[in-house]
């Protein structure tokens, strides 16, 4: 059996290689037949698995992940958190943005094994005690989602911005969200929504 797939290989193999070195010291490889951490796939391949521990939206998860899985795949396909979207799967659009230890990261370009020992926040983690965040409410009030597909990523980048700077300028908002494409091109409304969620409400 061929051990790689060329179409997706360039990025995955590259980051996979780098990732393995980083995580080797603190993660535990799992034998291929021990796939108890897997949720919904049958074992059909001799794919290396690594057992990791990560915190997602405040809940600790111990999971065995295939080394080739991206963090997006882990979240969407194995932890049931489909609010994180895949727009390009190659780090161009930002729809998959999550917070990794509070910093925005493209989860499509982050291997799941790299999340070992780290804290991940997704769009599902923004709502607290049944209440949407001030930023989410501003997104609702200012029509920031059109089709809504980029919205999760825009929200996560903006959440990180507001955490480090409660009163950003329009320029700072645009720069913080520059990695989040919106093909509906609803950029004006998104910036207005973020402004409304700043300490001074954009005044």
């Amino acid at each position, binding site marked *: *059996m*061929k051990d*790689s*797939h*060329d*179409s*997706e290989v360039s990025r995955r193999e590259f980051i996979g290689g780098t990732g393995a070195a980083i995580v080797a010291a603190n993660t535990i490889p799992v034998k291929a037949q021990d796939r108890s951490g897997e949720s919904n*796939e049958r074992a*059909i*391949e001799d*794919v290396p698995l690594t057992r990791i521990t990560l915190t997602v939206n405040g809940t600790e998860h111990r999971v065995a992940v*295939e080394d*080739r899985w991206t963090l997006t795949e882990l979240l969407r396909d194995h932890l049931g*958190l*489909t*609010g*994180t*979207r*895949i*727009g*390009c*799967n*190659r780090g*161009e*659009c930002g*729809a998959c943005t999550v917070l990794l230890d509070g910093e925005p990261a493209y989860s499509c370009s982050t291997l799941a094994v790299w999340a070992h020992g780290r804290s991940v926040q*997704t769009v*599902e983690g923004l*709502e607290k005690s049944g209440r*949407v965040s001030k930023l*989410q409410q501003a*997104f*609702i*009030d200012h*029509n*920031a*989602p*059109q*089709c*809504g*597909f980029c*919205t999760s990523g825009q*929200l996560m980048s903006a959440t990180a911005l507001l955490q480090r700077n409660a009163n950003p300028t329009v320029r700072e*908002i*645009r*720069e913080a*969200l*520059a*990695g*989040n*494409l*919106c*093909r*509906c*091109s*609803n*950029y*004006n*409304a998104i*910036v207005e929504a973020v402004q409304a969620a700043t300490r001074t409400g954009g005044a």
Partner: protein
Amino acid sequence: MAIDPLKTVGQNTPRIDAYERVTGQATYTRDIKLPGMLYARVLRSNVPHAMIRRIDTSKAEALPGVRAVMTHETHKIPYGSGSISGGRQYSDAHKDITTRLRYTFNDHVRYVGEPVAAVAAVNRHVAEEALQLIEIDYEELPFVLDVEEAIEPGAPEIWSGGNIAHDSENRQQPIGGRTGDLEAGFAEADQIFEDRFTTQFVQDAQMEPRSALAHWEGDKLILHTPTQGVSNCRHDTARDLGLEDHQVQVICQYMGGGFGDKNGNYYFDLIAAAFARDLGVPVMVELSRKDDWLATHGRWHTVQDYRVGVKDDGTVTAIQLNGLSGMGPYLRRSGNVAGMDVYACENTEKSILPVHTNRVVSGNFRAPTYPQGYFGIESMMDEVAYKLGIDPVQFALKNMVRPTETKQFTNFTLDQCIEQGAELFDWANRWKPEPGSGEGPIKRGAGMAFMMFNARLGASSAILRVNAEGRYTVYVGVTDIGPGAKTTMSMLAAEELGVPLSDVDIVWGDSDRCPYSVGESGSRCTMMTGYAVVEAARDLKRQIAENGMPQGDSVLIASATPAPTTNGKLREGFGAHFVEVEVDTHLGDVRVTKYVTVHESGRILNPLPALDQIRGAVIQGIGQALTEDLRYDSRNGQPLTSGYYWGRHLTHLDVPQIENVFIETDDGLGPYGAKTVGESGIIIAPVAVANAVYNAIGHRMRDLPITRDKILEVVA
């Protein structure tokens, strides 16, 4: 003209599903998981033109986890009902006579990206790996990328009989026709100007990469797919698979954007359906971003040659357009080029040939025939105005279409849009009578353009129900692609029924549960399906008045399929755009520094999303003007600039704040006088930007996009 205020309609209303959209709970096609489902991937041609001599799938089939492989040898499924005729794929008559059949997989491959095989496997990694194990022996053929070369004698034949696309009767006829007396118009002219304008392919590039999830219940197909029209998608899919409409249920609850070419089915819907039928389990086909960018459809590129006759006083007396539209190898949509009818000049001739090349397939993108056509004609007219020494605003007011005895409008505000826009923008001070006259390396200039877009009426359906609880349920076949159609439909029902919006529920995006809708394309959804909601609400009110509110388990149900007309009058949305740009003549950069739009779209039903329809469309248009492109390597026919990065779609950092004003009117037609909104904003954005660039640097940019290299070439 003041309009009568209404209670719900006209109020800024956050979309009713905004919560789902900001919490990640909105379920897009790829978010759906069904027990036992398989994942499928599509292998694509890596050559622009070839015959497949041999295709060997044995190694792929032997890969553990692979469940099935599909090629042209195993599955001969027509796509587009066996028709490739633009805009006519719903025509049974054409299906029977077409000589240019397109299948889901073709052994004659005609562009890089064309599907050649598909694999269904237990997960997407296995499916991707299996694609690499499929061996294809191509007999490569000469290819052609350029529309003019494609129609020269001896050009590689993408179809036997030549590369001019067939019309619905298999004729190779140009689109267009004549009005008035063209020769007399040119004879009357004091001066005649000729020029060529060209526009690029622009990919729709909606954020959600396409997917389709199919499963069968007996002989019935259930298809989850991101479509702009569940009704049309169902009909297309049924016909392609040889089924009756009732055997197909199309469901689309949320979709990540649709900008035109999704009001129908796609080949991947058919692949999902065929795999699911063969294997007896649900199958999800997923396209990668690159697949989506290269192997769905985008705006056709054009070559437009204009000839314009004009009197010394600035009156246009004749307009002639000969054009070519690059459709890629399959005709998906018309290839027409719009714009001439926004001028009053009655002596016109238009002749557009849709041409096949070995580029990606073209299709509809937001106002499909307009931005490229308006770029051509209004660049041409801008040039004429400067040549005659006339302010473009005055030239526009002098030559734009106006109501006449024989050309009546339901209402007309184009002059108002232009005048109000010029004032808001401060045209008199921002526009330079002498183009390129700014001091220093960064040159500032202003440009304008004006448009109209058909706000046609037509048939669509809605069902409305009330139960004893006093809950009103609207059933409409909309999929809410982004403009907020679910909210608009609910608001219309609430308004007409005189109940709070919170009393109204909606059932949408499901061809089994909802009646026919035209779908969300052509900016028709609000006017047609929205009007059906109003009519159904009127009927329900009448029933309630006659019978009282339902009691116990009973319900009252009303439905409507109105087909209103304008009694021969034109019904148009109008608009004018005014743009200021700064051009860095050292670096070649163009920056939009001010953008003012005035639109008349009838009554604005929900101002919040309506504004963002205009602003978003304008920004897409700026992208078409300045950056977006699909470039090919002419030596080998390989596309070079697919995807978000190379396709250069605009980001937060690239866009100006758009200032929009709606002139609200009510012509008594459509739902409370609402007209077209969604496509209006993009139509003149490219040309308004281009005209501003001319004013800034004094060089006419005739080829989109206006990139650095083109600026530097002329200013150096």
